[in-house]
C-alpha cells in the first residue's frame, strides 16, 4: 500500500505538465514586430509596465488589436496613432514634444542653466570678497610651521 502511494506520488508530475505556451501569432516575424512596438507602449492598467510585458486582460486585448492591424498591413506609426486616438499620449513611453510637454522635455536643461548661472554669479561675488593679503617673511614662516607641524614633532 505504502509503495503504491509512493508510486502514485512519483507519477504526479505527469499530470502537472503544463504544455507549451501557446504561440499567439502563427507568424513569428509579426509577433516579434508586435512585441517591439508594444515595448514602447504603456499598459494603462498597470501603469509602469509596457504593453509587451503586462498580463492584464486589457493588455492582451490591445496586443491582439495590434497584431490584427499588423496583419491588415498598417504601419507602426498608424497603429500608434490608432492607440493614441483612444488612450491619449499617455500610452507612449516616449511623450511627443508639444506645447504642454515643453517643460518636461526642456525643464531639466533650463534648471541646469539656472544652476550654472547661479554658480557663476556666486563665484564672482566671492572672488570680489577675497582680497589678497601680503605676509611678511616672518609671518609666512610662522604660517608654514603651523601648517606643517611634523618637523616639530621630529625634534
Amino acid at each position, binding site marked *: 500500500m505504502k509503495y503504491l502511494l509512493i508510486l502514485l506520488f512519483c507519477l504526479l508530475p505527469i499530470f502537472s505538465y503544463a504544455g507549451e505556451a501557446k504561440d499567439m501569432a502563427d507568424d513569428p516575424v509579426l509577433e516579434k514586430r508586435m512585441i517591439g512596438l508594444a515595448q514602447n507602449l504603456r499598459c*494603462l492598467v498597470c501603469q509602469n509596465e509596457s504593453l509587451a510585458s503586462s498580463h492584464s*486582460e486589457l493588455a492582451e*486585448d490591445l496586443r491582439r488589436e495590434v497584431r490584427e492591424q499588423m496583419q491588415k498591413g498598417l504601419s507602426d506609426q498608424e497603429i500608434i496613432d490608432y492607440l493614441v486616438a483612444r*488612450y491619449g499620449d*499617455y500610452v507612449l513611453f516616449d511623450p511627443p514634444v508639444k506645447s504642454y510637454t515643453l517643460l518636461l522635455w526642456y525643464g531639466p536643461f533650463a534648471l541646469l542653466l539656472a544652476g550654472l548661472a547661479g554658480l557663476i554669479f556666486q563665484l564672482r561675488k566671492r572672488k570680489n570678497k577675497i582680497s589678497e593679503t601680503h605676509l611678511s617673511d616672518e609671518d609666512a614662516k610662522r604660517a608654514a610651521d603651523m601648517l606643517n607641524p611634523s618637523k616639530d614633532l621630529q625634534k
Partner: protein
Amino acid sequence: MMRFIWPFVIFVTLAGFLYVGLHLNPHEVPSPLVGKPAPLFNLSQLHEPAKQFSPKEMKGQVWLLNVWASWCVSCKVEHPVLLALSRQNIVPIYGLDYKDKREAGMAWLQEGGNPYVLSASDIEGRIGIDYGVYGVPETYVIDKEGVIRYKQIGPVTQQSLHEKILPLVAELKAK
C-alpha cells in the same frame, strides 16, 4: 536674513508641487475622446440578443453610457447611485456590458437591480477599446450631437454626480 530667502522660496515651491501631487490620481488618464464624437458601434442587446443597439439612435438626446461588468468590483459601489439616478428620470443611462458573459451580466442585473434603459453586450471588449476603456466602471456623458462631453473614470459617486455629471447634463439639455 537674506541668505535664507532662496532656500525658503525653493522649499515652498517644492512643497507646493508635492502637495498638489498628493491629490492627483495617476489612474485618471485624461481621455482624448472628450469633445469628440462618441465612436459608433452596433452591438446586440444584453437582454434581447436579436436586437441591436447603436449610439446613432440616441441623436437629439443627452444620455449616459456606463461601462460595467459582472466581474467588476467597483461597479457594485456605484450601482446604488445609478439605480437612484435612474429612478429620478433625469437622464437615460445605457450600459455597455464589457468583456462579460451574457448570462453573468443578466444575473448580475437581476440580483442588484437594473438602472439601464438597455445594455449592449461587448463580449470581446472591442468597443471598449474604441472608447478608450481601461478601468471599469467608466461613464461617458454624451450630448445631443453625439459628442462625448465628460468621462468619469471609476465609480460614479454622489459627489461626482452632483458636482460634475448632473450640472453638465442640465447644461447640455438646455442647449
